[in-house]
């Protein structure tokens, strides 16, 4: 009776359900395309298996390790980056799908050593502890504002609910966003 659930769990335990082999055997042109990815205003030529997620491409190919993996299942928000200014879970999308898009990661948020105002607001409002969820929170906050959702405290709480913070910094995260946007 529990057979189906058993295999479902077995699948999960072995990783994301869609484990990919990479590199696996002789790569065909379609399986391992070469394409250009624009990240933080820089163009990178990439040759990766078509099944590599944007998150893994950023972290393991481009050395942009600021973006974090919290679940690889689209459920925690730690991997949030901006694609053309909008939020996306980079673990749920394939790198190859983003040729021609503008990808922004935590590394591209500040201008040189000048912090983005949301970064400054996070520091001012003590909006993080262990920091692991923080890059995702910051990108999500910027995306939310771009999307026009940072209206008041309640909408910010709702709109930030896709980003888990186990350290429980939510009240201060919301304060930081409101502080940045001059709302209360």
């Amino acid at each position, binding site marked *: 009776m529990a057979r189906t659930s058993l295999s479902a769990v077995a699948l999960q335990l072995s990783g994301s359900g869609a*484990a990919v082999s*990479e590199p696996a055997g002789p790569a065909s042109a379609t399986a391992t395309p070469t394409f250009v990815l624009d990240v933080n205003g820089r163009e990178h030529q990439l040759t990766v298996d078509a099944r590599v997620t944007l998150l893994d491409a950023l972290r393991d190919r481009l050395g942009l390790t600021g973006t974090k993996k919290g679940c690889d299942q689209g459920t925690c928000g730690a991997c949030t980056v901006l694609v053309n200014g909008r939020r996306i879970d980079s673990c749920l999308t394939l790198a190859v799908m983003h040729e021609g898009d503008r990808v922004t990661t935590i590394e591209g948020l500040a201008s040189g050593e000048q912090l983005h105002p949301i970064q400054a607001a996070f520091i001012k409002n003590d909006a993080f502890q262990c920091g692991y969820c923080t890059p995702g929170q910051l990108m999500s906050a910027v995306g939310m504002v771009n999307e026009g959702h940072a209206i008041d405290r309640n909408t*910010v709480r709702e709109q930030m609910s896709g980003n888990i913070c186990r350290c429980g910094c939510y009240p201060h995260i919301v*304060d930081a966003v409101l502080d940045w946007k001059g709302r209360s």
Partner: protein
Amino acid sequence: MSTIPSMIGSPIRRREDPRLITGRATYVDDVKMVGTVYAAFVRSPYGHAKVRSVDVSAAKERPGVVAAYAAADLIAAGLNVSIPVAADLPGLKKPAHPPLAIDEVRFVGEPVAVVVANTPYAARDAVEAVAVEYDQLEAAIDLEKAAAGPPYVHEDLGTNVAFVMPVKTGDPEAAFAEADVVVKERIVNQRLIPCPMEPRSMLAHWDTGAAHLTLWTSTQIPHLLRTNLALLLGLGEIKVRVIAPEVGGGFGAKLNLYGEEIVVSWLSTQLGRPVKYIETRSENFAAMTHGRDQIQYIEVGAKKDGTITGLRMKIFANLGAYHQLLTPGIPTFTPLMSPGCYKLTGFDCEVTGVFTNTMATDAYRGAGRPEATFMIERAIDLVALELGLDPVDVRRKNFIGSGEFPFTTITGLTYDSGNYAASLDKALELVDYKGLRAKQEELRKQGRYLGIGFSTYVEVCGMGPSAAMPAPGWDSAQVRVEPTGSVTVMTGISPHGQGEETTFAQIVSAELGVPIDSVSVIHGDTDKVQYGVGTFGSRGTAVGGAALKLAIDSIQAKAVKIAAHQWEANPDDVEYKDGKITVKGDPSKSMTTAEVGFTAFRGVGLPPGLEPGLDATRRFEPPNFVYPFGAHVCVVEVDADTGEAKIVRYIAVDDCGRVINPLIVDGQIHGGLAQGIAQALYEEAVYDENGQLVSGTFMDYAMPRAHQLLAFETDRTTTPSPVNPLGVKGVGEAGTIGSTPAVVNAVMDALAPFGVKNIDMPLRPEKLWKAMHANSNGKVNE
């Protein structure tokens, strides 16, 4: 000695912040090494099964695979070990716990084999190629049934009971004889899953040239891990270096030594290559330690006026299938802290630790104390309800008085300092208790259900006196004044979000008068830092900070000698004042720590017989635990249509002794509240009857999120601790311990008009709605 007052107690921004806010912090998975291979574990899909065979040969043929091992291969290669358990109790059963299961699996997610490949993808793919034949066995899942009889998790033990610990003190018979009422309840403290956002992550590198192992791992206890790992791998301790780089949360679940850490380290020694293993979130849910999971049968004796006389408890604690480092020790905290802030004359408790076919439980924020606090704070409310008294009055009636400290409790602990009435008074004032009760009355008439819940908690932390701990309880600090006057601090604790890089720099700056930016705080690397015990049990500042204070004292004493010699003054007339060394009553004579530090480095002009250099290594052995406390008030409204409990206000007045950095203290309280409130309302680990973890993803396990938590109102009282030279208590777990009962008490208060006394956590809308719509027979009205 006086200090720069502005540094202590100031909301200094954390120096950890810039690297964390820009994505430049280095967590384990951000450490990249050339030639790294990746491990993936084959894990049991069954809660309980015989392992008939494990065949890794097909996996070895998969593209990119470097090696694959089953338990038999490890044993044949000489790695025949059991994952250690440090906690011990009289008569404790300690079944073997191999890092890879040998002939039986006992929980879903138990490792059975390991595959190593050139990429993490290839490793995970190859996991599918490992053939394991299982014969499924009946699983022991239900805690009370498992305590009573078969099936047995460890057949050869002939029982699932790992230990029985009786605690009987005072005169319980007399206490209950003088009681006018005895309130009984079955209290369930459900299983929780810690879920730090960074899962278990490790990278082992065996340097074949130096024959030396470095393990980067996401841990709270690098030194203890190193010692144990060296012993298990048969390497000299000097051949092992453990580094805890940036750690993305631990909450007790990284206060451990995992089989995966042993296996990954061993693999590197075998393969001569760096081996990385980053667990998936599903593995994290299934195979990182869980927390709580107790069922408590309680009887509380009370007099008509609300005086609590005695407490009887029978506790069943779910240990899971095997012991991890502290598994059996965690529930033993529960009886000790069960009296809470109150005076009793009789206490009679029995704790039964029970094996089940589930993941091991172990420390999780609060670790055995939330279970005590939840029980006693609920019990107080149940007594108040029974006697028709205000729960605030019952609390006051039984408080240990502010003049009675140090106070030895009925369970033999000595509470260091406290003023329970003061924190309660402050909370009542903040919440406007009278006004709120009036409003509650008003709203009830309109069919709206407001509830007000209290929790006046005390907890034990600052772990702890070595004699009372399963591992050393002291911690260490080294302070070095460098030739240029900057100061290096090596601390034995291992912070991972608690901000001690900042608070310790504040202490040094205040005491030695050096600018905070010229203080560096180093931790988490066993090749750099002298032995330290780590960060857990809210001990970072209370023990590690106290060691730092001792080291500073030594530096100051030496600096005074050097300055006195320079001035040809009597050392007794020289002192540290406002961060400078001066001659008492002669402000014209003044030297900085940097100036004295340079003299000490140069080695010229020192008093005869005094060694050059200005540094000190000290250890602080705590003479006692510390006991933070506080009063929390939760105001909820339960929607009669949906059953949803919404927190309207949450007031937390906490007392953690002297505060070094209020910003950081508030952050710790907020985080604690989030986890404590989430236990009350949302979180629950669920296994089905076969031992499948049903709540194994963030979609199924209800982690609290931003929209569920409102802004908290925090305040504090300050009662310094006499236990350590800083006067501090811990604050990491207080919020969690204090908050859960406040929320549940509030919801039960809201539901009082429905005659509801107790509902098991988490208080999901469905449960509350049913309780509100049940008729007198307990059936739900259609």
